[in-house]
């Protein structure tokens, strides 16, 4: 029934009758909408003075988002195949030049680090995180990897615990 494909920063959904292209920009606008809708319901119950400016912001931003969303979604617009081809060949060239890794890995890594710190504490999570990230990105110099992993942990200990006196999370297990 539906066929999905990915082009340069857009998703194309093909049905029997229609071809819908949704640009990546729609994702950002969706995130903002996902914030603005509950934000609106939170501010609507406030006193007149407190909600005047936020309501104005919600009104203007909703209009602008609507205008942009209309531009992000193209239905049955003919794509220039030659442009798509040249973009694809450019992507191939770029793949050869860059380290072509999963770009959102740092985000996932940070989430796992935050989770790990809450469970097993800083002094175990941080060296493991640093080591695994460097390994994933292709570094194979084991001595450097171990030294850096331990070095960062020591740095955090001396700067945060000793100098700034900020207690580092010990985790549920060791806390």
């Amino acid at each position, binding site marked *: 029934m539906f066929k999905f494909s990915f082009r340069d920063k857009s998703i194309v959904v093909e049905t029997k009758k229609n071809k819908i292209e949704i640009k990546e*920009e729609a994702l950002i606008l969706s*995130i903002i909408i996902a*914030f603005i809708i509950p934000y609106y319901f939170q501010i609507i119950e406030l006193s007149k*003075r407190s*909600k005047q400016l*936020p309501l104005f912001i919600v009104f203007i*931003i909703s209009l602008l988002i609507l205008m942009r969303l209309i531009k992000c979604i193209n239905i049955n617009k003919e794509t220039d195949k030659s442009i798509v081809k040249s973009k694809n060949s450019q992507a191939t060239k770029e793949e050869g030049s860059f380290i072509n890794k999963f770009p959102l890995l740092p985000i996932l890594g940070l989430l796992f680090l*935050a989770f790990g710190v809450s469970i097993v504490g800083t002094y175990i999570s941080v060296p493991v*995180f640093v080591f695994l990230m460097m390994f994933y990105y292709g570094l194979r110099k084991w001595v450097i990897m171990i030294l*850096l992993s331990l070095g960062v942990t020591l740095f955090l200990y001396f700067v945060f615990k000793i100098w700034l006196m900020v207690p580092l999370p010990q985790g549920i297990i060791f806390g």
Partner: protein
Amino acid sequence: MRRGVLILDTIGELIINGLKATATINAVFYICAGTLMGLIVGIIPGFQSAMAVAILLPLTLFMGPFESMVFLISIYIADIYGGSITATIINIPGTGASVATTLDGYPMTQKGECARALGIVFGSSFFSGIIAYIFMLFVMLPIARFAIRFGPPELFLLGIWGITMLSSVSSGDMRKTLIAGLFGLAIGSIGVTATGEWRANFGSLYLIEGVNFIPAIIGLYAVSEVISMSERKFIVRDRLPEIPKLSNVLKGLFEPFKNIGVFLRSTIIGTIIGAIPAAGGTIGSLVAYGDARSRDSKPELFGTGYAPGIIAPESANNASTGGALITTFSLGIPGSATTAVLIGALMIQGLRPGPQLLREQIGLVYAIIVAAIIAQIFMLFFSIIIGYKVVGILGIPTQILVPLISVFCMFGTFAIRNAMFDVYLMIAFGLIGWLMKRNGYPPVAIVLGIVLGPMIDSEFIRTITLWPDNWMITIFTRPISIFIFILIAISLITPILKKRNKNKNNITNKILPDIDLSED
């Protein structure tokens, strides 16, 4: 005339006494220690000068009032130098005041002119700091008197003026910039209102105080930059970049004088905005950037690694520290968390900042200002050395940098209030910042909204509370409000007029390219 001469004589005497106080081993030691700490704090993302100053405050118990203030103020000023180094080299501003520097500093690094960019940063900061602090010596009281006249209507309009700078940070679709800026304003409005109500905290106790702008800056810039870095072998290019030359750094130091108009205007803007309570280096640097762009004959070059785009924010952010200290010393009003701690430091020494301090301890105040001027020389020296070393980051593969910067970002954010909530917020902003950069939405617009949102909102509420029946008339009839309103109108109209002129010239050139209009 005689009175003027007498005042100058008195100020001259105070300056000489200040120089004598600074020319001691103790003072030089504390200036150097404070400068180095401030630079390190500024370079590491997530670390704030307020944190360092607050933690080192107990040490000042063992120092005299002059040494303690010189030490803490050196940290305060050097923090901005440090934040600008990372803003220029790796697009990660270490402080809010360095956000505007990323707009042209990092593009200049990407063009392979990292050394020149750093030189411009250091030169602009150094010379503007010298001018602003010398200015402080002679006009501290009039500026303080002017700053105290800013009431809620003026502060509200000042925030609006800051928002109009969105037009200067937009290099593409203005609607995208507006969406980002309004999104930032909405986020900035989260928290306790001026009427004491909890607004949009979504049931979370962590959001009662609002969204701290440090997780937002670290997420939007550092984390999103880390994601982008992970797609490259090195920070700037796909191959090892050439090592920048120190001679290029030194050449860049004097570039502010090639754009003397931008430099002087930005210094004045930074000093005055820094003196206004609740405003600060972030607002000052963005306003100065917007002003420079709107007046430049080639505004389209801003954002591409253009020297005035670095000179303007860097001159303003360092000058704003001088302005902030004017209100701190002369009125006892802190303009930021750091200056609030500085007031605490004075009170520990048994001194009370404000008019009383100027009456009874004018010698001490002037000695501190003179020491801050001398400290600029040490800051320049250490910045060049440390900055030049930090440039070495460009040669480190991203395989190593990505995990290290991620860890520093996380713990720098965590250290704000020991809450993992801030870390999750930082990660969310990181994802949003990365998506925005890919689709032409400038993250600086969100930062502007988050920084200015609380000020605009609270001052608006105060205005309509104080003048419930005629707040609109009040806003547009007070003298300072009228002046700020004219500035807003100028900053909105100037880009439109310039664009119209440019289009007119383009049309003229197309229609009449070959006709010789000279008279025979």
